[in-house]
């Protein structure tokens, strides 16, 4: 039929093959794709941090201008003066995150495994509040938690407020302008950020794993503890991060639902920057907050053993 056959390439004197290089233009493609976006982040995200670092060690006044004097004392002063707000921020954000996980997990679980044909509707209901500005919704909490509102009256009648005021979370028969109101607002605002990642990772779990676990003598509770929860860890990690990080720097809830006793570090930074115009202190406080959050996030991610945030 055919006579053309091959020989294996030159077994004798090894000819050094002439290597072709891919054209330079092709090798540069990824850099061109990255350039505009990365430049944007460098100029408007990274560079501002550098500017702020420099601002934080400046001294001076608005009238006479600020000079870099390597005045690290600002950090010490800022920390000494505002550590209560800083601590409060971490406490509130931490509590809100824990509450989000506690409240969000059952709902995410419900949507992922028990909702059946209601699944899409429930998902829409979780996302829908986003479409009303979060400020408007936070203001609604002012109505819900107002003195003599239905909710507060009910809590009073059930003597819940007696317990919470004894704990220092509320004051007398008031909920508004107390730590509880602020934490409640934070929890509310960031719940969807907890539920959606949780749902995503729960939904990926093969339903047959539950059957397999139960087939292997695990009770429903054990199945959850040994199978479902470990498999939903990526969702738990990203959910807690997406909740804790923004909550720690928030000042809207503290401003609208709290009082002067519930000011968070965000409120301080905001007023130092926009009202007091003490830029070095504000910059130093931002850096302290950033350092604490990044440190906590890094440790947390290491412990949880995942690299993906979202």
């Amino acid at each position, binding site marked *: 039929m055919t006579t053309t056959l091959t020989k294996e390439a030159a077994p004798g004197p090894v000819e050094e093959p002439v290597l072709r290089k891919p054209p330079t233009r092709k090798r540069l493609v990824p850099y061109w794709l990255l350039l505009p976006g990365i430049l944007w*982040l460098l100029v*408007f995200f*990274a560079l501002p941090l550098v500017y702020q670092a420099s601002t934080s060690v400046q001294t001076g006044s608005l009238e006479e201008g600020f000079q870099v004097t390597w005045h690290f004392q600002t950090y010490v002063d800022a920390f000494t003066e505002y550590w209560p707000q800083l601590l409060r921020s971490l406490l509130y954000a931490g509590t809100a995150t824990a509450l989000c996980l506690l409240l969000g997990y*059952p709902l995410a679980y419900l949507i992922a495994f028990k909702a059946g044909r209601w699944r899409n509707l429930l998902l*829409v209901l979780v996302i829908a*509040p986003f479409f009303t500005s979060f400020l408007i919704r936070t203001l609604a909490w002012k109505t819900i938690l107002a003195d003599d509102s239905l909710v507060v009256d009910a809590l009073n009648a059930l003597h819940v407020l007696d317990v919470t005021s004894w704990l220092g979370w509320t004051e007398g028969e008031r909920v508004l302008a107390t730590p509880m109101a602020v934490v409640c607002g934070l929890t509310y605002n960031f719940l969807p950020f907890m539920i959606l990642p949780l749902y995503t990772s729960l939904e990926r779990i093969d339903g047959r794993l539950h059957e397999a676990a139960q087939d292997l003598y695990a009770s429903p509770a054990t199945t959850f503890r040994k199978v479902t929860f470990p498999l939903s860890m990526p969702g738990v990690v990203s959910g807690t991060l997406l909740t804790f990080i923004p909550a*720690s720097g928030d000042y809207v809830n503290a401003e609208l639902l709290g009082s002067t006793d519930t000011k968070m570090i965000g409120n301080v*930074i905001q007023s130092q920057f926009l009202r007091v115009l003490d830029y070095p202190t504000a910059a130093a406080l931002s*850096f302290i907050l950033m350092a604490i959050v990044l440190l906590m996030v890094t440790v947390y991610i290491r412990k949880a053993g995942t690299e993906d945030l979202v």
Partner: protein
Amino acid sequence: MSWIRKNLVVIAGLLTLAYMILPNVVVMVFSFNKPNGRFNYSWQQFSLDAWKDPCGVADMCESLTLSLQLAAWSTVGAVVLGTMIAFALVRYRFRARGAINSLIFLPMAMPEVVMAASLLTLFLNMGIELGFWTVLIAHIMFCLSFVVTAVKARVMSMDPRLEEAARDLYAGPAQTFLRVTLPIAAPGIAAGALLAFALSFDDFIITNFNAGSTVTFPMFVWGSAQRGTPVQINVIGTAMFVLAVLMVVAGQIITNRRKKTATA
């Protein structure tokens, strides 16, 4: 009692849902209120006044328009830049990948107030006048990472052989991108765009720092929380909520119908 135990998850889940929906219900109910004073915090009497004249409050609808414009442009900017980055990250090998990944991750791991303050420092130091443009710059910046994440997830699950098939079938680079890559990556890009739009439209903290005298809708609401809350705010909030839910439902119906005709 055993019924409760059996359905504990369902009950707990629905309670959470109620907690999440409650404020929206309040917003809706109070859009029909006729408050006594300047603040719309307690129920007085039923009225349709605000619905009849939603733009009756000075500057509110202007701020709304501004916010919509800002959100639209931020979305365009973030989607274009973010999609390019996502493709580069998934499809190519290059130097400094780790550093670039961190640069994209960090804005999402940074409290907003830190980014807001530092960006303001930059603008002040550079002597740039605050306003529409500074807000747009800021919005594109913080939406970018979210778009990258959304698009990246989609592109990663895309079979690179599809593009090879297109090139094999006489489609040049541009044709391949337009006819194959883009349509298949579209759901990821759409998800990123939606996210960017929502983030930009609803952003308050970063905007508040960098807007100067420009007033976006969230800033208008913030201001009115100090001065007095017009009922129209609730009207806008309710209208957007209803509109969004209707759009989602309509979209669902359309896809369902398409699926049916496709299998028929």
